[in-house]
């Protein structure tokens, strides 16, 4: 694969320590496109060794709007089936530039390790000192040890180490779209984290046409339906919580976006500092980045104050536990004491609702946002959402943003794929792959 790709599939056997590489064949891309099309295929190939497969789409890390997606595919401890969790912020982009398009992690390491992927090199590093650390300390330690504060991590905390079905693989310090218990799989493999840093370069088959088209789409999106909206609070408002902005407002510091994503899906709240502070705060951990709208919504609907909801979200990400599941269990138990909730993490168990939609994460709200996409009947939302997510997970597009931008049509993504790679993907082939990954 010459374009929009590093042309490498990495295979890491944690049990033996062996690392090997395969080429990413045009033939495989022609059949499976990329993203979850290929992670699913690699999962099936290595199924007997309980694989965790990381991957990106061919548009990930490009100038195409919202090309922020990386994906983890594995058998969910919560469903027993193959499922896919998105990772965004800057981590999807960073994986793309490490020099590996896909990473297949097999077996169980005899001791705690982390996988360090950088500049086309893969190292299995000892993580004995990190075992027992929370997610924040883990990311801090890895960045300090490698001397690079821009390393992105997919890391677990105590929840993953102790085998909780609710354990989440977190991104750096924050939540992720892992609602499948993949943190438990990391723990079972003695895999504390995957650390990502890349300075690669992606060639483009028709660069000028590709970039022209990116600018055209950006121009259309800028005047789109979400113009003037921002942050996670406006997403909650769109989901029916009309007072979400007012509720969260006293704590909002700034809004930020995932890589190349035109809408700021993330809201940072200051809990230990004046939220209006503009200068760099002295307090090293003044707050929390909220990037999971469904979890925040669940805490709000369970009657939490904004401050307490944010405190629990922060505690969840340190412990490495799915905040949406914690919110659901809190609502059932009626528990609202933040300290007691935090103390209960080690014993927290289901039953927790299995996400709708089969294989894609319920982290992305199952409804159109800011635009109706022509889907006015709520009963049709799930089918619409499932297909929309499949497309996002195949090409590498942000799974929440894809629900708010009808400009990012399937036809456009096919066109960009073809301009970027020089291959010829058709709508018929896309339909076949979507059916395949959704079945």
């Amino acid at each position, binding site marked *: 694969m010459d374009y929009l790709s590093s042309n490498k599939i990495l295979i890491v056997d944690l049990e033996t320590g062996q690392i090997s590489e395969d080429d990413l064949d045009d033939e495989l891309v022609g059949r499976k496109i990329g993203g979850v099309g290929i992670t699913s295929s690699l999962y099936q190939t290595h199924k007997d060794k309980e694989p965790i497969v990381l991957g990106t789409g061919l548009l990930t890390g490009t100038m195409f709007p919202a090309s922020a997606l990386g994906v983890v595919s594995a058998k969910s401890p919560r469903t027993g089936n193959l499922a896919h969790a998105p990772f965004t912020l800057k981590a999807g982009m960073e994986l793309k530039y490490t020099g590996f398009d896909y990473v297949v992690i097999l077996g169980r390491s005899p001791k705690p390790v982390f996988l360090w992927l950088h500049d086309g090199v893969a190292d299995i590093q000892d993580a004995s000192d990190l075992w027992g650390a929370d997610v924040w300390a883990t990311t801090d330690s890895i960045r300090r040890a490698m001397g690079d*504060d821009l390393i992105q991590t997919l890391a677990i905390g105590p929840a993953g180490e102790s085998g909780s079905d609710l354990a989440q693989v977190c991104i750096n310090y924050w939540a992720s779209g892992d609602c499948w218990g993949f943190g438990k799989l990391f723990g079972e493999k003695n895999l504390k984290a995957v650390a990502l840093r890349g300075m690669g370069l992606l060639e483009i088959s028709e660069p000028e046409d590709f970039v022209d088209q990116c600018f055209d789409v950006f121009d259309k999106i800028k005047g789109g339906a979400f113009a003037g909206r921002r942050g996670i609070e406006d997403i909650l408002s769109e989901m029916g919580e009309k007072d979400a902005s007012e509720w969260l407002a006293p704590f909002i510091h700034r809004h*930020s976006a995932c890589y190349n994503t035109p809408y700021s899906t993330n809201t940072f709240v200051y809990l230990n500092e004046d939220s209006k502070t503009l200068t760099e705060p002295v307090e090293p951990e003044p707050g929390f980045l909220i990037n999971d709208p469904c979890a925040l919504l669940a805490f709000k609907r369970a009657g939490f104050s904004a401050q307490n909801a944010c405190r629990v979200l922060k505690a969840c990400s340190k412990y490495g536990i799915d905040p949406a599941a914690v919110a659901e269990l809190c609502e059932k138990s009626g528990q609202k004491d933040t300290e007691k909730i935090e103390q209960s993490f080690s014993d927290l168990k289901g039953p927790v609702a299995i996400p709708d939609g089969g294989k894609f994460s319920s982290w992305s709200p199952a409804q159109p946002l800011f635009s109706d996409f022509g889907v006015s009947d709520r009963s049709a939302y799930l089918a619409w959402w499932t297909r929309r997510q499949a497309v996002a997970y195949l090409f590498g597009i942000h799974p929440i943003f894809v629900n708010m931008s009808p400009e990012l049509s399937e036809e456009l993504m096919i066109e960009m794929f073809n301009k970027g790679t020089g291959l010829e993907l058709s709508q018929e082939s896309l339909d076949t792959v979507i059916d395949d990954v959704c079945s």
Partner: protein
Amino acid sequence: MRIDVDALKCIGCMACEMACGYHRDDAFALLSSCIVVYRAREKKDYFGVVIKEEESLTIARPEGLEIKRIGVAEEPDPAGQKKEADASAKPMLLREPCDLCNGMKYGPMCVKICPVDAISLVEEGE
């Protein structure tokens, strides 16, 4: 003319950085960009933008703009904190200065791509 950044509008998406990288390399890469989102103080949510220009570094911080002349010795930071030296793996001073995307039909690509209009082209001295 020069590039101006309103750091408070910036959402840290890095679209500008990738567009600049494309201008330099005719491919997608970040190492050659002369505009960089500094984002190393992630837990503090303290981020902004640095631009390498011919004779200066423009640092757009949330609290305001600072222009540092290249070659002038820096005063030590009394708080002992790192500032923008941690912006990226390749030091800003080793990068090519901004040429306003000279030769590109789009004009300055960072201005064109910014989704929140945080970046603009202004007259020198503005």
